[in-house]
């Protein structure tokens, strides 16, 4: 007999996930408690907020604004810093067996290497390199993942010393994702995470005559970015062999199926929490299972990139 559990249980880089749904970086992931909340809502794997060497309070508000079909946000990488962050991971690990991805952010290879040293001493299962935050350009310029050379360099520097598998999170805001996906793979990444927020975008309040976000610009997430996320996962998965975490605007089981068909191995849900509640993970697990059941598939792997190229 095939059940929800058997259909959705999946292997990700050697870890067994109860469900293929992931809590992505920066969404709810500040504390052990918020990671736990996602797990209890049906997420099969969780990611911490992107951690930096020093604590960051992030940008002043407004840090987020609703737009057509989603949000623009510029949190500004608020996080308690790597030292405090890995303590939250330990706290989480006391209460849960679910794998944790530690997301880290730096602006040059050395920073990433230092962060990796901290992570090596932590209980994180995977390390994710945020090479693609679009919301700190005033401080740091365009994201590292705009350049294949830099992507390869950073990923290699980290994989050289990391004790756990390395995931590269790439930016959607590039003319050719294939080059960056290949660069990350060549650098030694064990998986890709696609996409970080889009754009960034901007909103102006016409009565006040000012940009709405304090940071002026903010990356887009939510349903409106899904077509671009699906496209980039499709393109990246056509050139790399490593698994891809597909995310960007996933709201329903149908969206998750679409992402799997595009070539993703597992699926992230972030902004969807706003639209369908924390319970979105359980809802999407059920919807995914129902789809597989109705179409007589035994496992999500069977629909990965199905037919698409035929």
């Amino acid at each position, binding site marked *: 007999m095939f059940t929800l559990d058997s259909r959705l249980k999946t292997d990700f880089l050697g870890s067994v996930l109860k469900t293929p749904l992931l809590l992505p970086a920066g969404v709810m992931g*500040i504390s052990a408690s918020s990671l*736990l909340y996602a797990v209890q809502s049906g997420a099969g794997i969780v990611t911490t907020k992107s951690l930096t060497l020093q604590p960051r309070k992030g940008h002043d508000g*407004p840090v987020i604004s609703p737009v057509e079909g989603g949000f623009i946000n510029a949190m500004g990488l608020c996080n308690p810093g790597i030292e405090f962050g890995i303590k939250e991971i330990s706290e989480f690990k006391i209460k849960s067996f679910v794998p944790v991805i530690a997301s880290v952010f730096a602006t040059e290879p050395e920073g990433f290497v230092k962060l990796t040293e901290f992570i090596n001493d932590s209980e994180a299962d995977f390390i994710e390199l945020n090479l693609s935050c679009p919301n700190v350009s005033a401080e740091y310029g365009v994201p590292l993942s705009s350049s294949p050379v830099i992507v390869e360099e950073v990923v290699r520097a980290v994989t050289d010393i990391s004790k756990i598998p390395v995931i590269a999170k790439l930016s959607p805001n590039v003319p050719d994702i294939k080059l960056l996906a290949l660069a990350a793979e060549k650098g030694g990444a064990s998986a890709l995470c696609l996409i970080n927020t889009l754009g960034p975008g901007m909103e102006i*309040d016409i*009565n006040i005559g000012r940009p709405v976000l*304090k940071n002026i610009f903010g990356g887009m997430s939510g349903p409106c970015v899904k077509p671009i996320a699906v496209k980039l996962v499709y393109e990246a998965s056509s050139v790399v062999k490593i698994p891809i975490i597909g995310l960007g605007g996933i709201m329903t089981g149908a969206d998750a199926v679409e992402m799997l068909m595009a070539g993703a191995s597992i699926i992230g849900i972030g902004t969807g929490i706003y639209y369908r509640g924390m319970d979105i993970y359980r809802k999407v697990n059920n919807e995914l299972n129902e789809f597989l059941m109705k179409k007589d598939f035994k496992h999500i792997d069977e629909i990965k990139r199905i037919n698409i190229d035929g």
Partner: protein
Amino acid sequence: MDKRISLRIDKIVEETSSVKTFCFSSPIDALPGQFIMLSDLRTGEKPFSISSSDSNGFSVTVKALGPFSSGMFAFKTGDFLSIRGPFGKPFDLRKGSILIAGGGVGVPPLFFLARELKKAGTEVVFINGAKNSDELIFKDLINELGINQIIMTDDGSSGKKGNAAEGLLNTLNESDFDAVYVAGPEGMLKKIADIKTDTYMELLIERYMKCAVGICGQCAVDPSGIRVCVEGPVFNQNMIRKLTEFGVYKRDAAGRKKYFEKAFSK
């Protein structure tokens, strides 16, 4: 309202030298206990409880504290502010006889609550607490509702001497109530939440907020990770007691734990 909007300030009421009420004449679909995110698009964006709302518009009541709230005092009628919301789970309006206890900026959302309860024909006792008579707010508005108002000031400069928590304890001992609603500083809330009582009780708590839509995780509280901006800011006594961080610490803008001063713990 799904989108951010900018609204003209239509009226400003000076409640005290450090508290102003900003009124907007666009209606908003809000219930007592809910809050909006308010911004000048220059200094920041902060959550403020809705202090009244009906088909003519709504208001928020701001106490000058730090850069943002003090900055609000420079705004004049006709200026525009950027608004998102309303957000959060409102008070669950019970029937019967109701006790309300508010301290400081906990009073505005409770005034809105009292007005709605009164509209529904419910009997309400309102304990209005402040440091001193100068800081007392909404006294006349609450009287106008025609409900029993018990004023408490720390220094006894108005009403009885003592804080809202003490006033609540005394009143609860004297009479039976069907529900108790409380808002105010965490020290006060903590004392009240610790009261052993069978009376249904809801408390409005504050945590640092950024997104207010439940995705950034900033306001998630230990140990369950529930979000004050979505599952709160109103919690019942049972839920509050399960929050291990309540009265002990809260997280700052970076997500670090900041412990309250001794005074707050049991």
